[in-house]
C-alpha cells in the first residue's frame, strides 16, 4: 500500500469518526448513552453491512444484473437492514423522542457508509483512490446518514402517536429513505469527477434539510401537545379554557412527567428551574407596564437582569439538545402559551413563581394608588418593626395590594376569636382594643399605628376585640395576599425570620428571667444577687393593672416588665413571710 492509498483510507475513517466524536462531545443525543450511539455505528458497519453484503451477493448469484441490483435492489435491502436496530431501539427507554431517532439513524448510516467505502469503493477505485476517498466518504456517508436519519425520525414521531394509523409513519420513513437511496445510486452511477462530488453532496445536503424539516415538524407536534395540555386549544374560549384548567389541575405534572421522559429525569429539575425563571421574567416584564416609582421600576429591571443571567447559566448547564427542544416547544415569543404556562406553573409551584404579581394584574388592583402614594405608604410600612428589614422597593410592590377602608361611626373591626386574616394601618381616626366583655378599652391606636401585624404571619385567632371609633380611614393588608407576596421572595422571608428571631430571643430571655426569679422565691433567698441576665431598667407596673404580654411588642421592655412582675411578687411574698415570722416571734 502506498502513501496516497494510506491517506485515502485515513480520510475515509477520519471523517465519520470525527462526526461521531462531535455527536458525543456536543451531547446532541442527550438522553442516550455514548454506548448506544456506538452500538448504532457498529450495527451499521458490521451487522447491517455484513447482512447486506451476503444478501446482495446471493441475489447476484441468482442471476440479477449488477446494475439492477445497484439501482433498485440494494437500496431496499440496505435501508431495511439498517432500520432493524432502530426498530429495536424505539422500544427502549433510551430512545425518547425524534431527535434521538435522528441521531441514532445518522449513526447507523455513518457506520454503514464507512464499511461500504472501506471494503467496496476504495479497493475498486485504483489510481483515483484519493479523489474517491473524498467524494465517496462525504457523499455516501451523507446519503446513508440522511436516509437512516429519516427512518429514525419517523420512529421517534411514532412514539407520540396513539391513533390506529400510527404505523403509517415508519413506512413513510422507510419509503423516503429508500427513495433517497435510489435517486442517489442512479444519479451517482452516471456521473464522475467534480460533477459527481457536487451532486452527491447535494443529495446528502438535501437529506439533511429533510431531517431538519422533520425534526421541526416533530417539535411542533410536541408544542401542540403541550399547548393542549395547558388548555390552549384554538377553538375553545378563554373562559372555557380556564374552567378546564381548574377541573384538571394536573397539567404541569403531566408536562413535567413527559419532559422527564423526553429530556431525562436528571435534567428535569434544571428545566423546572429554567421554566420558573422564565415565568418570573415574563411576570416582571408585565409589571413594567404598570406606572410605578423609579425605585420600584429599577428594582424590577435589576431582578429581570438577574433572572436572565440565571437562566443563561442554567441553559449552559443543560446543553444544546435540551435547549433546542425547549426553544421549539416553549418559544419565548409565544405570549398566550407563555401566559398559560405561567399560570399553571404558579398554581403548581407558588413558592417559586411571583404569584402575587400575577394576582395584582388579573385582579386589576395594580393601579389603585399613584406611584407617589405607594412610595409614601412604603416609607410608612418601613417604620413598622415587622417590615424594618424589607427593602423599600419590595414594600412598594406589596403596597399595591393594600385596600383603603372608610368608616363612619362605630364599627367592629374584628372580634376576639376571629381568624387573624389581615393587618390594619390606622390612616385617620382611632381603633380601640377591648378584652372579652369589657367596655373599657385596653388600649387605643391612633393614626400612624398598626394593628394586628402578627396575624400576617400566623393567622391565629384574635386575642381581643378591635373597634373603629368614629370616622376613620384604615389601610388593610390581607394575610393571604401577604403570604402570596413573600412565598416567591426569599429575601422577604428572611426579613420575617429575622424579625421573629428577635422576638423569640426576648421570649427566651423573659423565660430565663422568670425562672431565675421563681427559683429564688422558691428557696426564700430573696436578696441574693442574680446570676441571670440582669435587667437594668425597670418599668413600674401600676398595681391595679395586669401585666399583659403583646406579641407585637415583645422587646427588652417586655423582659424588664416580666422581671418587674416577679420582683414585685418576691417583695410581697417576702413581706408576708416576714410578718408571719414576726407574728410567730410575738406569740
Amino acid at each position, binding site marked *: 500500500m502506498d502513501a496516497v492509498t494510506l491517506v485515502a483510507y485515513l480520510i475515509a475513517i477520519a471523517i465519520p469518526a470525527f462526526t461521531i466524536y462531535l455527536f458525543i462531545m456536543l451531547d446532541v443525543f442527550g438522553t442516550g448513552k455514548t454506548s448506544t450511539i456506538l452500538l448504532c455505528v457498529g450495527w451499521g458497519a458490521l451487522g447491517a453491512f455484513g447482512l447486506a453484503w451476503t444478501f446482495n451477493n446471493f441475489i447476484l448469484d441468482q442471476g440479477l444484473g449488477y446494475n439492477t441490483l445497484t439501482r433498485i435492489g440494494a437500496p431496499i435491502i440496505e435501508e431495511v437492514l439498517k432500520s432493524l436496530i432502530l426498530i429495536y431501539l424505539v422500544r427502549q427507554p433510551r430512545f425518547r423522542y425524534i431527535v434521538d431517532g435522528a441521531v441514532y439513524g445518522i449513526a447507523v448510516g455513518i457506520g454503514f457508509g464507512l464499511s461500504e467505502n472501506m471494503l467496496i469503493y476504495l479497493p475498486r477505485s485504483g489510481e483515483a483512490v484519493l479523489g474517491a476517498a473524498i467524494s465517496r466518504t462525504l457523499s455516501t456517508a451523507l446519503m446513508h446518514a440522511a436516509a437512516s436519519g429519516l427512518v429514525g425520525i419517523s420512529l421517534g414521531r411514532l412514539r407520540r402517536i396513539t391513533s390506529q394509523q400510527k404505523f403509517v409513519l415508519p413506512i413513510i420513513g422507510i419509503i423516503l429513505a429508500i427513495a433517497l437511496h435510489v435517486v442517489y445510486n442512479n444519479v451517482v452511477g452516471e456521473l464522475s469527477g467534480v460533477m459527481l462530488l457536487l451532486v452527491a453532496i447535494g443529495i446528502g445536503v438535501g437529506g439533511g434539510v429533510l431531517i431538519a424539516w422533520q425534526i421541526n415538524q416533530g417539535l411542533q407536534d410536541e408544542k401542540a401537545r403541550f399547548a393542549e395540555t395547558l388548555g390552549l386549544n384554538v377553538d375553545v374560549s378563554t373562559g372555557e379554557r380556564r374552567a378546564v384548567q381548574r377541573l384538571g389541575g394536573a397539567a404541569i405534572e403531566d408536562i413535567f412527567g413527559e419532559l422527564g421522559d423526553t429530556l431525562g429525569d436528571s435534567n428535569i429539575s434544571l428545566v423546572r428551574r429554567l421554566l420558573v425563571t422564565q415565568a418570573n421574567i415574563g411576570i416582571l416584564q408585565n409589571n413594567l407596564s404598570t406606572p410605578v416609582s423609579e425605585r420600584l421600576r429599577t428594582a424590577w429591571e435589576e431582578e429581570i437582569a438577574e433572572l436572565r443571567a440565571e437562566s443563561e447559566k442554567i441553559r449552559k448547564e443543560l446543553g444544546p439538545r435540551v435547549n433546542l427542544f425547549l426553544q421549539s416547544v416553549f418559544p419565548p415569543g409565544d405570549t398566550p402559551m407563555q401566559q398559560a404556562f405561567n399560570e399553571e406553573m404558579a398554581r403548581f409551584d407558588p413558592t417559586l413563581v411571583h404569584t402575587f404579581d400575577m394576582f395584582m394584574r388579573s385582579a386589576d388592583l395594580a393601579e389603585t394608588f399613584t406611584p407617589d402614594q405607594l412610595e409614601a405608604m412604603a416609607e410608612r410600612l418601613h417604620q413598622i418593626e415587622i417590615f424594618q428589614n424589607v427593602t423599600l422597593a419590595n414594600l412598594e410592590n406589596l403596597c399595591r395590594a393594600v385596600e383603603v377602608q372608610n368608616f363612619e361611626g362605630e364599627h367592629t373591626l374584628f372580634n376576639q376569636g376571629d381568624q387573624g386574616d389581615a393587618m390594619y394601618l390606622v390612616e385617620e381616626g382611632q381603633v380601640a382594643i377591648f378584652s372579652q366583655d369589657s367596655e373599657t378599652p385596653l388600649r387605643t391606636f391612633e393614626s400612624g399605628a398598626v394593628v394586628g401585624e402578627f396575624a400576617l404571619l400566623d393567622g391565629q385567632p384574635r386575642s381581643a376585640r378591635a373597634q373603629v371609633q368614629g370616622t376613620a380611614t384604615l389601610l388593610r393588608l390581607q394575610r393571604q395576599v401577604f403570604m402570596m407576596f413573600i412565598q416567591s*421572595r426569599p429575601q422577604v*422571608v428572611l426579613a420575617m425570620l429575622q424579625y421573629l428571631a428577635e422576638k423569640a430571643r426576648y*421570649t427566651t430571655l423573659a423565660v430565663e428571667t422568670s425562672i431565675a426569679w*421563681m427559683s429564688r422565691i422558691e428557696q426564700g433567698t430573696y436578696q441574693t444577687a442574680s446570676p441571670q441576665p440582669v435587667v437594668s431598667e425597670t418599668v413600674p407596673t401600676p398595681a391595679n393593672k395586669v401585666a399583659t*404580654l403583646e406579641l407585637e411588642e*415583645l422587646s427588652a421592655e417586655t423582659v424588664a416588665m416580666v422581671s418587674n412582675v416577679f420582683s414585685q411578687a418576691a417583695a410581697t411574698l417576702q413581706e408576708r413571710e416576714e410578718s408571719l415570722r414576726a407574728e410567730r416571734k410575738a406569740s
Partner: protein
Amino acid sequence: MSLNVGEQLQGSFIFRGVEPAAREALVAVMRREHFPQGAVLFHKDSVGDSVYLILSGEIRIYSVDELGREFTIRHYGANQIFGEFAMLDQKPRSASAAASQDSDVLVLHRDDFLNFLRERPLIGLSLMRNLVERVRYTTSYLQRVMDATQLLTQGKYDQAALNEIPGTATETEIQQLVDVFVQMVRSVQSREETLRRSS
C-alpha cells in the same frame, strides 16, 4: 452518617417539619469543625452568624456575673443544637461557648443558609411557621405563669397551681418554666403554712 445528622436537625424546634430531602441538603452545606477541650467557639457580645450541631463531645455555655466570676449556664451534648437565633438576626451572643470536652461540631453559616434559602423557599416558610408558633406558645405560657404568680401573692395557692397551666409542655424551655413554677408555689405554700401553724 449524614442521614443520622439530618434527623438530628429535627431536634431543634426551628427545623421541625422540614422534609427529609431538604434536611439532607441543609446538612450538606454545613461545615464540620473540631474543637479540642477548652477551645472557645464564640465569646459573649461577639456578633453571631452561625448555628451549631454537636456531633460528639460537650459544649459549655457560660457568662460572667457582676463580680467577674465565670458561671456555667448550661451544657449541650451530642445531637443538640444551639445558636439558631444568632444565625437569623445576627445579634450579639448573649453568652460565651467553649468545648468542655474534645468536640466535633457541624456549623451552618448564615451565608450558606441564605444561598440554601434561595433554592428552597419552602424551607423559609417552615422556619417562619416554627418561629411564630414558638413565640406565641412561649408568650402564652409566660403570661399564664405571671398571672398565676399574682394569685400566689394573694395567697391563693391552689388557684395559682391550677391556673390553666398544663403540666407538660413540648418544649424543654417551657417545661422548665412550668416545673420551677410548681416548685415555687409548693415551697412558698409549705413555708407559710409552717409559719402559720407554729404561730
